[in-house]
C-alpha cells in the first residue's frame, strides 16, 4: 500500500481521482492559485460588545474597496440593530435574529449563506464578491470557523478568508483577562484590530498589544473611528502563516501559540496521522492550526487548516509564495506546549521514514 492510498479522513471528500485523475492526479483536486480557490471569501468580524465592529464595517463599506460586499449581521440581545445603517452602504444585508452565532444561530447562518449564494446565482441579489459576517459580541469564534469546514454545502461555495478580531483599547485588557470568549476571539484571529486607542491610556494600549502578541502571532493594527486600510481586512493571505515571531509564552491564560518548521517535505500520510492522533487525544485544546506544507506527494504547497477536531479540506496551490520551501505550521492551543507537539511529529515522521519499500521488503 502506497502512502497516498492510506484511507484518509480528510481527503475523502476531495475527488475520485483513482478513476479520472490522469497521469497528473493532484491529491486534492485541481491546484489552486490561492487558498480560497474559486470560492467566495468570507470575512468574519468578531469582537466584544462595544468594541467597534459595526463602525469598522461601516467604514469599510463606505470605501470603494468595500463595494460588492454582502453583510450578515448577528447580534445578541439587542433591539433596533445597526442594520439600517449598514444597509444604506452595502448591496446586501441580512440580519440574523436574536441569538448567538456560536450556538443556536449557526444553522441560521448556514441557511442565510446558502440563500445568499442561490439568490446571487439567479440574479435576485447583486453579484457580490465577498461576505462580511458581524458576529455577536459574545460569540465563540470556533464554531464559525468550523462552519466553513464541516458544512459541505458552504465549504464548496465559501471560504473563510479571515477572522478579524476587534479589541478596544479601553476595555480589551480587562475583557481578555476575565472573559474566556474575549480571549478566544483574540487568540483565534487572523488579524487583530485595536480600536479606541485615542481615548485609552497609552500605557494600557501598549500592555494590550503585548498581551495580544503573547496570545497570537497575528498582525495587529491600531484603528480610530473605523478608518483602516481596506486591505488589512480584505486581502487574501498571500502566504498563510508566514509570521513566526511569537510573543512570550502566555502562562496565565493557558493558551499557547507556537510554530513548527520542517526542513524536509512531509509525507501526507504521516502528517495526516499525526494530526489525527493529536486531535483525537487533545481535540478541544487544539484551537486552531494553520499551515503551508511541502508534501512529498504534491508538486505545489498544501494549505491546511484545523479547528479543534475539524479539518478544512486541504488545498494544493499552483506555486509557492516565495523561495522558502519549508513546511510551517502555526498552532493556537490550550495547555498543549510546543515541545509535546514537536515530539509527536518527530516520532511519526521517524516511523514513516522507516516504512520505505526496501525496509518493507526486508521485513517480509
Amino acid at each position, binding site marked *: 500500500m502506497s502512502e497516498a492510498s492510506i484511507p484518509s479522513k480528510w481527503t475523502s471528500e476531495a475527488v475520485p481521482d483513482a478513476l479520472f485523475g490522469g497521469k497528473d492526479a493532484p491529491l486534492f*483536486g485541481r491546484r489552486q492559485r490561492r487558498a480560497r480557490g*474559486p470560492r467566495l471569501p468570507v470575512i468574519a468580524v468578531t469582537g466584544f460588545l462595544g468594541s467597534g465592529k459595526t463602525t469598522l464595517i461601516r467604514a469599510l463599506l463606505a470605501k470603494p474597496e468595500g463595494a460588492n460586499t454582502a453583510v450578515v449581521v448577528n447580534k445578541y440581545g439587542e433591539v433596533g440593530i445597526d442594520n439600517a445603517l449598514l444597509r444604506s452602504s452595502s448591496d446586501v444585508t441580512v440580519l440574523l435574529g436574536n441569538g448567538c452565532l456560536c450556538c443556536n444561530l449557526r444553522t441560521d447562518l448556514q441557511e442565510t449563506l446558502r440563500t445568499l449564494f442561490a439568490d446571487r446565482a439567479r440574479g435576485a441579489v447583486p453579484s457580490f464578491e465577498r461576505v462580511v459576517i458581524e458576529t455577536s459580541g459574545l460569540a465563540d469564534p470556533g464554531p464559525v470557523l468550523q462552519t466553513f469546514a464541516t458544512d459541505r454545502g458552504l465549504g464548496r461555495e465559501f471560504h473563510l478568508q479571515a477572522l478579524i478580531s476587534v479589541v478596544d483599547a479601553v476595555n480589551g485588557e480587562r475583557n481578555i483577562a476575565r472573559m474566556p470568549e474575549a480571549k478566544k476571539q483574540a487568540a483565534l484571529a487572523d488579524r487583530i484590530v485595536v480600536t479606541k486607542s485615542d481615548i485609552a491610556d497609552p500605557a494600557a494600549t501598549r500592555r494590550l498589544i503585548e498581551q495580544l502578541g503573547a496570545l497570537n502571532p497575528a498582525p495587529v493594527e491600531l484603528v480610530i473611528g473605523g478608518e483602516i486600510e481596506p486591505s488589512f481586512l480584505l486581502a487574501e493571505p498571500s502566504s498563510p502563516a508566514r509570521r513566526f515571531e511569537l510573543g512570550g509564552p502566555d502562562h496565565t491564560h493557558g493558551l499557547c501559540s507556537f510554530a513548527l518548521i520542517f526542513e524536509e517535505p512531509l509525507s501526507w500520510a504521516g502528517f495526516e496521522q499525526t494530526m489525527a492522533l493529536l486531535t483525537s487525544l487533545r481535540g478541544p485544546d487544539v484551537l486552531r492550526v494553520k499551515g503551508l506544507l511541502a508534501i512529498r506527494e504534491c508538486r505545489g504547497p498544501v494549505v491546511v487548516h484545523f479547528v479543534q477536531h475539524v479539518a478544512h479540506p486541504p488545498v494544493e496551490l499552483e506555486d509557492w509564495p516565495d523561495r522558502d520551501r519549508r513546511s510551517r505550521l502555526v498552532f493556537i492551543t490550550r495547555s498543549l506546549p510546543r515541545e509535546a507537539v514537536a515530539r509527536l511529529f518527530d516520532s511519526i515522521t521517524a516511523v514513516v521514514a522507516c516504512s520505505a519499500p526496501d525496509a518493507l521488503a526486508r521485513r517480509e
Partner: protein
Amino acid sequence: MADTAIWNFRQLAHHELDGFGGIGEGMSIQIAKDGRRILWLAHESAPKNFTAVDVSDPRAPKIVARADLPQSHMRSNSLETVGDIMAVAYQTKEQGLQPAGFELFDISVPENPRSITFFDCSGPHSRGVHQLWFADGEYIHMSSSAPDFTPTHPRDDQFYRIIDVKNPSHPVEVGRWWLPGTRQGDSEPPPARHPEGADTGFRPHNTNVYPERPDRAYLGYIDGGMIILDISDKSRPKMVSRWDYHPPYHGFTHTVVPFFDRNLLIVSDECVRTEGADWPKLVWVVDGRTETNPVPIATCPLPPLDNYMKPGARYGAHNLYENLPKPNAWKSDRVVLATYFNGGLRAYDTSNPYQPAEIGYFVPAAPERAPSGAIQINDVFVDERQVVYTVDRHVGGLYTLEMDF
C-alpha cells in the same frame, strides 16, 4: 440582468468592433512575423466575412483588418489559422447557391489577407461548409455538403469531409463519412426525424481531431448525438461509437472535447430556440474509459431557466473551449469553459467529474443595440497567456478577460 455579472473573471477590455460585433464560431490566434498577436474572428452573418484584431495588449484590442463577404446570401461562421494560413468556411443560406465551400488565405501580412484558393463545395443540394477544424496545417476536417451528395432529407445535407491541404493551392478530398441512411442510395433506412420544430438535421457540427489520437475524429452530430470515428485510414472512416440521447433531449449535439489523459469527454449541445423552447441545453461530462460505450455521468450545473429567459434570446449551452492543439492555445483537462448565450461564459472544475463545480462566470450587460435586449455569448478562446476571449453573437463584439479561479 441589466448589469454585468462577473465572478472569478477579470474583464480587461471590450471592443464592439466598430458596429460589426456579431461574431460566429471562429476564433483563432496568429503570431504575426513582427510578433503581434492577431485574433481572427469569423462573423455570425453577412455583410462581414472576418475581422482581425491585434490583441498583443489584451487591454487595448485594435482592429487591423476586416473583409466583406462577396454575397449577402452567405455567412462565414467558422475559421481557423495555422501559421500564416487561414481557412474560412462559406455556407450559403439556401442549397444550390454559390460560393459554398472554404477559402484559404495567406495572412502573412495581417492587414492584407490574400486569397490562395477557393475549394468549391457547391451543388444542387449543398449549402457548403458550416464549420471547419484546421490544426495540423495538413488536413481540414469539416462539416460540409458536396456537389455529388444527395441527402435523403434536405436537413441532412452536410457530412464529415477530410481535405488534404498540404499543398494549399490544390486542396484534395481524401475521405468522408456520413451517418448511414442520410444519403440517397444508402442501404440503411433514414434516421427517424425529430419532431417538427425540433428537427435540426443529422449532420456534423464540430469535427475535432487531436494529436493525442490522430486516428480519431470527435463529432458533435447535431440530432445524431455524439459520434467517435476511427480515421486511421482517412479514406475510409469507421464509426467507433455513438451516444444518442435524443429524444428525450432536444437534439443539436455541438462539440466533443476529449480530456484524453482523464478518459473523459466533454460534450456540448447548442441551444437553438428562444424562450426556453429547447431547454435544457447542456454541457455533459461523459465517461470515455470504454470508447465503444460512452456513459454520461454528469452535466455542468446551470442557473434556472427563468434567470436568463428573455423573449427573442437564447439561453443554453453552445460552444466549448476546445483545447486547440496549437502552441498559442491554453490547455486544461480539468477546467471547462462554455458559452451559454444569455447565460454568458461559465467555467467549471471537473476535478470530480461526477460533480462538476461552477468556478466562475461572466455575463456581460446587454449591448446597447442587442436585438433581443440580451447578451448572446457565442464562443470562447483562451490563449497560452491564459487571456480569455469571448464574443457576442449579434452586436456586442469582443470581450477580453483574465481567469481568476
